[in-house]
Each structure stands twice: as structure tokens, then as C-alpha cells.
């Protein structure tokens, strides 16, 4: 069977659903398909907690949001993209309000905003501390009224179909039946989210395996700024469950083993009882995670069976604030850590959280490969530069989901139907999946073994601090692991809902993506934002005020080139917090 649509979206989270609605509204005659490996409302947008930034207060301005974002990103953000993003974020958030999102409110009924890390003004819209959950469900439920949007729920995309220099759809497995078939399209938008699962300790759901990045990369599109992986400073030990930055925005303190607010020792400001914007606990995530390592080296963290931790203290906020502003934090702590933040401190450590890099796109979400678009965490526009600010990712997926949707709709309207060549390609892909994986009986490697080795390699070499020799060793090791991932032997040779087959394909995607991260990190001989090289501790604007672009060579290795950063009005300067 062959299915065909005007636009196919891969991924049904926030970006995918926003794009789907944008297409349906731009041109109701277009047929849109959302292809997702999980039901859309299970997508990882659901886990976002703290909020979504958009300027709405009289004391705030678009320029200030731009500056916070650009300085937060250590000047690696493209400033034209940031300006477009900051301008469109409030209207996108407002649109979501009109679609029913239950934003938290002021007493008079206006939208409420809260402070957030690295933001100089209060501009973070929130729905208690389940912002992503409410945004996703509002988007999903709203999408149900658009009849033009077809859904392929629980279909796993294995390949992009490229012919005549343009992307013309995908090959996907329907999990329920095991059927493998092409879904053709005049335009394809990747909205598959991040790749946190390449690391062992991450806030990311198990589905965050970099699928879209690997799909694009294999199809010939470059990946941009893949060396920039964000560690969030406050994850629960063992599970890696995120304790939102909103906990600090509401006034939480980070304390070392002596009960001391250690951030004051690292040029992040002076401790005050009430939170001060762009200071101390409201500093940016990269700095706070790096400072944790310094504190650990001084022996001032607390040892636990799951590694060193510090304490996040919310007790002084009181029961009312915790229950109304941070109910999910309390629920997660009670359920998973068996502690009550009203009475006890929360043990936390830095945890892999967000990929700043991704598929290279322009500010309309278009990749260099005609017919291919990307939006959300899978994409790199780039507004986040070397370090994303908390509460910028949710508006990003709305702004650029909508932009990519509109651009893809326009492109699809002018294209002819996909040709027979891609149907033949799809048949080759089907054969590969069946012969090399599903029916293979001589595979020797076990998924969990290769995955654990990959994650260990990444944590040891590409964590908060990196070094040239460590990265070079990791690059070799990942080359071996890629070979091993190709020789996976499955226990499960059946068709019906074969989750082991999916896991094997995800592992191959992850190893591919891990190689681009290490390859890009090795070449960037400077320290900027989330990329810290102990052998090159300074930022080097002479050589590296540039995006890395990683392309896949024929032998599977990655080739790195650089693309200048777009600077409009904010020349590179020092990042200053707390002074």
C-alpha cells in the first residue's frame, strides 16, 4: 500500500500539532498527516513544567527578551531568528489561550507571569507547573476539530524518501500490524524532539532518541551546533526526573552540604532572601550546572548511591505557595523521592535536558534539502545558541511550528506528486528492515549492551566538561558501537507491535546522533555556553563565533564546516549575571 498526502509531519508533539493546525488554516484543501510513534498526547512536550516566555507586561520589551536570549546563548544565537521569535511568541501564547489552554491567572483574570532563569523581566506564562502538559493537550484537543488532519498514531518512521534532490515522504512501520509502507508527501516536516537518551542520566522520556536528527542527517541535511547539550541543574537522583526551574523562580535556594548558598562564590550575585532576576538561583542553566561540578571538586556536595547531589530548599516558601505554584514538584518528590518539599530539602544534581543543536533550518523552518522542514527541539534555527534559557523552548515550538507549517504548505501547493522512484526506494527500505533486522538470526549484539556502552561513552566524554583527548577516544569508541548496533540480534521476530524492533532502530539513530555530537565537540576548540573544553577554557570569537554544520560523509564519518552567526543589533559581549 502507498499513502499520499500534501504534507507529512513526523512527530505529534507541540511543534507537530502547531504545524498541523497552521497548515489546515493556511490552506484547508491540503491533506496533512501527523505520523507519530506514540499517540500525540503522549509526546514529550507533556513533561515540560515551568512555563513559556512571551513579553506581555508594560515594564517589559521585546528588546529585553532578545538580549536575555542572546546573552543566555553566549552570542551563538542568530539574532534575526531571535527577533522574529520574541515578536511572535506573545501572539502564539495568546492564540493558545484562545484555544483553551488553562494559563494561571492574576486575581483580575489577566494572564499571570512568573520569573525564570536568565530572564531580566517577569515574562514566563505558566499553567501551574504542568505547562507543557496543558499546552500539549490544548493543542491536541484543538487539532481534533480540523478534519484535514489525518493521524498515523503509533507509526514509526525509518527513512526519508529523497529523489530528484527533494524529500518526497517517509517509510514507516505501523506498529500494531507490523506493516511497512511509504507515506508520500510533497513536503515533510520533522517535529520529533530531542535526543537526551544518548546519555544515561536525562530528564528525557524514553522516546527521545534523536529520530528526526538521524533521519535528516542520513538523507543529506546538515546538523547544526550538535556540541551544545544542556544540563539542567536540578534533576532528582536515580530517576533524572526534572524539578522545574520555577521552583527557584518562586524563591527556592540551592545549598551545598554545609547548607551554604554556594552560587555566591561563582560570580552569580549575592544571596538575598527574595529571588533577584538574572542572579544567583535565577542564573542560566549552563552556569549553574558547571558550578555544581566546581563545588563537587571542592568536596562540598553530598555523596549518595546515585552520585553527588546538592539540596534544593523550598521549605521557606511555605505550604500555600508550593501547593498552588508548584504542585507537580511536590507530587513528584512525594511519589518518586519519598520526601515532602514542604518539610524537607530536595536532593538534586545536573541532568541532561535539552539539545540546543539540531537539523539546520532557516527562520521559516526550511532545511537546505528541498521539501524538508523541521521545528522544535529537533531543529536548530538557531534561537538558543550555546545555551537555551528556561521557558524559551515552549514558545519556540509554537512560533517555529507555525512558521514551518506555513512554509511547507506554500511549498507543497506548488509541487507535483511524488514519483515512482521513491516507491521503489521504499520497497528497498522494507527489504532492509525485514532482512537485516526482523528476520535476521545471526545477529550477535544485544540492544541494552550497546546502548549502555554508548551512554557511558557520552557521559564520560561529552558531559558538562570535555577535553580533546577524551572526545577523540569517544569518537573511536562510537565508531565501534555503530558497527555493533548494525549487528543487533532480536529476540522478537514477530510483526505485531514489535517494540524490540523499534528499540533497535532507535539505537541506530542514537549512535548516529552521538557521533555528530562528539565530532562537533571535538572540532570546537573553545568554551561557550554548554560546551566547556578544559583544554580551551575561553570563548574564542575570532575562530568560533560560528555555527558548526555537521554533514555525513559516505563512510559514515562526519565532516564539520562553519557558518557565521547572524548579528543584527547585539555585538558579542560579556555574559553578566548578578552584578
Amino acid at each position, binding site marked *: 500500500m502507498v499513502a499520499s498526502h500534501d504534507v507529512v509531519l513526523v512527530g505529534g508533539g507541540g511543534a507537530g500539532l502547531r504545524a498541523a493546525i497552521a497548515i489546515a488554516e493556511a490552506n484547508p484543501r491540503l491533506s496533512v498527516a501527523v505520523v507519530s510513534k*506514540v*499517540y500525540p*498526547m*503522549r*509526546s*514529550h512536550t*507533556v*513533561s515540560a513544567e515551568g512555563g513559556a516566555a512571551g513579553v506581555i507586561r508594560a515594564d517589559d520589551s521585546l528588546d529585553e527578551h532578545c538580549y536575555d536570549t542572546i546573552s543566555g546563548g553566549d552570542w551563538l544565537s542568530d539574532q534575526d531568528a531571535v527577533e522574529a521569535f520574541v515578536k511572535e511568541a506573545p*501572539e502564539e501564547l*495568546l*492564540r493558545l*489561550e*484562545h*484555544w*483553551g489552554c*488553562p*494559563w*494561571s*491567572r492574576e*486575581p*483580575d*483574570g*489577566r*494572564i499571570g507571569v512568573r520569573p525564570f532563569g536568565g530572564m531580566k523581566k517577569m515574562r514566563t506564562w505558566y499553567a501551574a507547573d*504542568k505547562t507543557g*502538559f*496543558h499546552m500539549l*493537550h490544548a493543542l491536541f*484537543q*484543538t487539532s*481534533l*476539530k480540523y478534519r484535514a488532519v489525518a493521524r498515523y*498514531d503509533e507509526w514509526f518512521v525509518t527513512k526519508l524518501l529523497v529523489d530528484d534532490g527533494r524529500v518526497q515522504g517517509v517509510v514507516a512501520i505501523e506498529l*500494531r500490524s507490523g506493516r511497512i509502507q511509504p507515506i508520500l508527501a510533497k513536503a515533510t516536516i520533522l517535529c520529533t524532539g530531542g535526543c537526551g537518551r544518548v546519555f544515561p542520566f536525562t530528564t528525557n*522520556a*524514553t*522516546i527521545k532518541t534523536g529520530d528526526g536528527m538521524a533521519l535528516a542527517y542520513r538523507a543529506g541535511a546538515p546538523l547544526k551546533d550538535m556540541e551544545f547539550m544542556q544540563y539542567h541543574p536540578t534533576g532528582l537522583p*536515580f*530517576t533524572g*526526573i*526534572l524539578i522545574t526551574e520555577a521552583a527557584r523562580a518562586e524563591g527556592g535556594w540551592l545549598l551545598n552540604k554545609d547548607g551554604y548558598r554556594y552560587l555566591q562564590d561563582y560570580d552569580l550575585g549575592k544571596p538575598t532572601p527574595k529571588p533577584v532576576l538574572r542572579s544567583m538561583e535565577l542564573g542560566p542553566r549552563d552556569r549553574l550546572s558547571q558550578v555544581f561540578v566546581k563545588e563537587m571538586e571542592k568536596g562540598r556536595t553530598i555523596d549518595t548511591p546515585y552520585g553527588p547531589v546538592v539540596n534544593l530548599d523550598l521549605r521557606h516558601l511555605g505550604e500555600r505557595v508550593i501547593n498552588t505554584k508548584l504542585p*507537580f514538584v511536590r*507530587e*513528584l518528590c512525594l*511519589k*518518586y523521592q519519598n520526601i515532602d518539599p514542604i518539610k524537607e530539602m530536595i536532593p538534586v544534581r545536573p541532568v541532561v535536558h535539552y539539545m540546543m543543536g539540531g537539523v539546520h533550518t532557516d527562520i521559516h523552518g526550511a532545511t537546505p534539502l528541498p521539501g524538508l522542514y523541521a521545528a522544535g527541539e529537533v531543529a536548530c534555527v538557531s534561537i538558543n545558541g550555546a545555551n537555551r534559557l528556561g521557558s524559551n523552548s515552549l514558545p519556540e515550538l509554537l512560533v517555529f511550528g507555525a512558521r514551518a507549517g506555513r512554509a511547507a504548505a506554500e511549498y507543497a501547493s506548488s509541487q507535483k506528486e511524488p514519483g515512482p522512484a521513491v516507491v521503489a526506494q521504499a520497497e528497498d527500505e522494507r527489504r532492509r528492515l525485514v532482512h537485516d533486522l526482523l528476520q535476521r538470526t545471526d545477529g550477535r549484539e*544485544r*540492544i*541494552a549492551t550497546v546502548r549502555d556502552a554508548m551512554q557511558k561513552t557520552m557521559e564520560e566524554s561529552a558531559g558538562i566538561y570535555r577535553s580533546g583527548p577524551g572526545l577523540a577516544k569517544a569518537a573511536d569508541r562510537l565508531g565501534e558501537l555503530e558497527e555493533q548496533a548494525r549487528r543487533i540480534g*532480536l*529476540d*522478537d521476530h*514477530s*510483526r*505485531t*507491535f*514489535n*517494540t*524490540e524492533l523499534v528499540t533497535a532502530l532507535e539505537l541506530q539513530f542514537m549512535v548516529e546522533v552521538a557521533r555528530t555530537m562528539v565530532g562537533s565537540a571535538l572540532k570546537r576548540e573553545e568554551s561557550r555556553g554548554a560546551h566547556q573544553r578544559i583544554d580551551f577554557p575561553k570563548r574564542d570569537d575570532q575562530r568560533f563565533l560560528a555555527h558548526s554544520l555537521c554533514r555525513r560523509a559516505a563512510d559514515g564519518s562526519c565532516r564539520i564546516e562553519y557558518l557565521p552567526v547572524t548579528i543584527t543589533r547585539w555585538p558579542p559581549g560579556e555574559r553578566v549575571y548578578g552584578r
Partner: protein
Amino acid sequence: MVDRITVEVARYRPEKEAEPSFQAYEVPCRKDWVILDGLNHIKDHLDGTLSYRWSCRMGVCGSCGMTVNGEPKLTCATFLADYAPGPLRVEPLRNFPIIRDVIVDIDDFMQKLSAVKPWLIRDAEKPLAEGEYRQTPAQLDEYKQFSMCINCMLCYSACPVYGLDPEFIGPAAIALAQRYNLDSRDQGARQRDEVLSKHEGIWSCTFVGECTKVCPKHVDPAGAIQRYKLSSAMGSVKDFLMPWRGK
């Protein structure tokens, strides 16, 4: 020395087996392991053929609902040690067709969700330029609880009415219809009424309240159903007394 616990998991592979059966696995019973960690241990190290759904493992994506020792549970939020010394039984959610192992077919819910029009309905859209619809914290509280549904299907699994009558629109879909009916920005209650009152399922709900008991997010679908019945009954009375009221 880590204690171990036996997990008996329902297996069903339609290509091979006519009937579901149980397979027992022994897994470490660590203090901080949830049932999902036990299943992942089986999948990674003992038997790659076991299939189940999971994603966020923090109780918000709604994927990993299963029947554990007879009760519907989110397996990412239920600790193995609570079932020591075992054995414990893990089965698919009840009242749904089984696709494979512990994976059930929820198409029926997805259709019912669409049917109740779970989106904001307005007679006239306010232009974005005019800003937000004002909504006070008290107005938000009116429906907030019903907006917390993660569609995990535990309530359908527990619902005796749905078990007997699959036409019943069911706890989560009614709660979500009420979530919009009670939203001060919404004007679609009458449209949803046509769906909710069409089938008598809603009247056959007997208020056993199993749905509310098993809900991991305290949505209280039973309360939503109760409230709907009251407002619907009130509406019928008003229609009788005031037939000129616009439909």
C-alpha cells in the same frame, strides 16, 4: 544482596498464540524501582519479546497503565517493593481489546474523545488583537481539576458500566467534556449535550465511583458525571418550563 521478586506477566502474541497466558520472570526488587523498572529489566536482560508501552516515567504521559494484581495502575508510579515478597501479576488494562502482551487497543476512546468536542467553542472568536479572555483564578478552579486528565485509561479499565456496555462514552471523555463546559471562555455546552445525552450510558452510571478511586491525577470523573447529570436534568426542567429558551 538484593531481594528478588517474581513478576508474572500476561503474554499474548496473536501470530503464535490463540489465548493469553502468563510468563513468570524473576527481577531484582530494589527499594526505588517501580514496576516499569522491573519490566525494563526483563526486556533488556531476560526476554526482548515482551512488549508494553511507556515513555515519560514520571506519571504524566499516560502510556504505561496496566492491571497490577487486579487493580489498574500507572506502572511508572507504582513501586515493586510494595508487592514484596510477590509474586505480582501484571496484565493488560481491562475492558479493552488486547493487541499484544499488555498493549491494549484504545481506538474506542480516541473516537469518543473527538465526539465530545474537546475544544473551546465560541459563538464568535475574539480577535487576537483584543487580548486574552479574562478568567479569574476562581473561574479557572471551576474546571481545572477536569483538565488534569492524562488519558491513561485507568478509569475505563475500572468502570463497571463500560465493561458491560462499550457504547458508554466513559469517565475520561465525560470529564473532558465537562472540562470545557465549565470553562468560562466556552459556549459549546449545548453542542456537547447532544453527544453526552444521546446515549443512555451516562444515566446508567451508578456512581460506584471506581473511576475516581483509580484516577492517578485526582480528576474525579465520577464528580464530573454527577455534575453533568444535575445540570442536564436542570436544563430539561428549564426547557419544559421555559420552552422559548434558545437551543
